[in-house]
């Protein structure tokens, strides 16, 4: 475990965007920015997959997720960061190192490198990553998790990020319909696509109306307005008032840091945050990311044999005899000596 960087309190849950949350968001925003830069570097130098040279973080997603109740004990809110990882994951308390382990396919990742990239799951952190092709699965899964919260009367809610093209997939509709029918504490965020036109035809507000669930739209607003939208949706959710569908408008390509910079400026001018404090936050975030990158380089890859064991709790998928322990070719043993070619 990497030490928890200062400035981030995953278990706090403010109802309004107070100065503590504001500082936290500043920290998270810088952390995301430094992580973004680091990942792009590592991709260019082929430590990470070349695709990650275009890696980027949408800071609005961090703000949205920060309005939920994070946790490290598996008892906080739940988040599927989807295409907007790692912003929400960081807001949920994931460390840059944890993130990098997944990107790099390290044996130390929570999936022992069996799964990785932008797709990762850590239930302790409340993060459920991609676990299937696109098709609404994440929305269904989070709806079911939210059902569990409601059934047990817990103060918990689930947040799922999808691209707005999720509207094209029937599985997404089934998930949202079920969430609405059961009135579970689910917040569904549909983000504008990052690339291409997305071939979208649906009107998101009308979709919410068709399922009789609440709707909100957030866009280029400052965090002060994005944050309370989610906080209000969460309040409704845990009060048994059912799901909310949130449309997250396109931030454009060039301006993806605009919000965070504007926000930092605001914190200094309006909240009276001393410049030195802002600077300290920035430095802490940078140091955390550098620490993580340095440590990553030293971590081992996966152990081939052990990593593949847990396909099924009581099934050790050890390699068939033809693959690892063949009998010597010129001494054909009695059949039984071959052992089971594959144990269940």
């Amino acid at each position: 475990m990497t030490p928890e960087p200062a400035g981030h309190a995953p278990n706090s849950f403010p109802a309004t965007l107070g100065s503590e949350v504001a500082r936290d968001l500043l920290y998270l925003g810088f952390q995301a920015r430094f992580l973004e830069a680091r990942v792009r570097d590592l991709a260019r130098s082929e430590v990470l997959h070349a695709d990650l040279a275009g890696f980027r973080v949408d800071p609005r997603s961090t703000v949205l997720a920060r309005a939920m109740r994070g946790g490290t004990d598996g008892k906080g809110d739940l988040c599927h960061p989807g295409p907007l990882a790692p912003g929400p994951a960081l807001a949920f308390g994931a460390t840059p190192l944890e993130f990098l382990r997944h990107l790099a396919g390290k044996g130390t990742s929570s999936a022992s490198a069996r799964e990785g990239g932008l797709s990762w799951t850590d239930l302790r952190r409340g993060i459920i990553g991609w676990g299937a092709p696109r098709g609404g699965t994440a929305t269904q899964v989070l709806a079911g998790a939210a059902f569990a919260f409601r059934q047990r009367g817990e103060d918990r809610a689930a947040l799922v990020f999808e691209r707005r093209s999720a509207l094209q997939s029937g599985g997404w509709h089934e998930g949202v319909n079920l969430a609405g029918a059961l009135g579970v504490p689910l917040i569904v965020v549909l983000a504008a696509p990052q690339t291409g036109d997305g071939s979208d035809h649906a009107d998101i507000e009308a979709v919410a109306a068709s399922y009789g669930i609440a709707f909100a739209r957030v866009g280029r607003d400052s965090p002060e307005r994005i944050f309370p939208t989610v906080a209000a949706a969460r309040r409704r959710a845990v009060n048994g008032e059912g799901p909310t569908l949130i449309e997250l408008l396109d931030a454009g390509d060039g301006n993806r840091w605009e919000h965070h910079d504007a926000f930092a400026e605001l914190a200094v001018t309006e909240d009276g945050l001393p410049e030195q404090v802002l600077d300290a936050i920035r430095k802490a975030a940078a140091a955390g990311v550098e620490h993580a990158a340095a440590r990553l380089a030293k971590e081992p890859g996966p152990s081939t044999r052990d990593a593949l064991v847990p396909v099924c709790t009581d099934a050790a998928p050890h390699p068939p005899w033809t693959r690892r322990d063949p009998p010597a070719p010129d001494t054909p043993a009695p059949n039984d000596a071959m052992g089971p070619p594959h144990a269940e």
Partner: protein
Amino acid sequence: MPNDAPAQVTRTRSGRPVTVLEAISEALWEEMERDERVFLMGEDIGAYGGAFKVTRGFLDRFGPSRVIDTPISEGGFTGAAAGAAHMGLRPVVEMQFMDFISPAYDVLTNYIATSLYRGAGPMPLVVRGPVGGGNRGGPFHSQNVEMAFFHTPGLKIVYPSNPRDAKGLLKSSIRDDNPVIFEEHKGLYRAPHCREVLPSEDYVIPLGSARTALEGEDLTIVTYGLMVHRSLEAAAELARDGIRAEVVDLRTLLPLDEEAIADSLKKTGKLLIVHEDTRTGGIAGEIAIRMNERAFEWLDGPILRVTAIDSPVPFSGELEDYFLPGVGDVVTAARYLVGY
């Protein structure tokens, strides 16, 4: 057990014999009583009690937060069950007919089967429901679904043949931390000839272990589900000619108890596999190659199979009877093999 228990879950308590359907109801009821994490999802399972009335009376006892009537969206509610399982619940999902599991194929094979593997932890989830032909249900209410899932690492598949196994295996499935597909043959649900008195105490039957339904020396018949009964009938007919067939009831298809199959084959030297499901790509193939890998030198004849014909399940009764494997088919194949 409270007094509000419905009739179909109280027969064992009063020492009466139960059908397969009642055994399944009892298993569900007792597991829900024992473990509050267990809950049910499915179409019309609440107020209506389910298409086959397996859950009649459950809504009254356990309430709508543990007996959930879902929209008609098998993919969606199976995905939701997975989310609930992540959060520590133990969902039991009913497919009204198992044929309708196909819209949930994606989430079952990609998301659910891979959960533990992807570092998302255990996935204690059961999908159960009626399978099989002989009921004039046509192509979409008569299928066997095991081979849709047999190739997916991470899933278990259970297919009982009698009340005792159905109850013990369903309890094991619910307690198992892996996703389990649990197939219930409609032709066994209320079959009078397979009613039996069950142990009154809580018992489980471990997944992955086959059962010798009949001991014999001359050939091994490996089968499961309704075909266990057809095979036993065939064995009785063969016995009249002095042919002693051993009948192995697999009970669990995945993991497959290849040890039990190999042991029997080594005794008899002849192996016939009988399954109701269609032929090409059926489970007989996997059994055949595993026995090649493990017991080739004990084979005194080819590994053969009796199966349904490669076709969707026909609508008309005449065609369906022709399509399904029958006792006569098993007898013919067994005689051929013994005489080989």
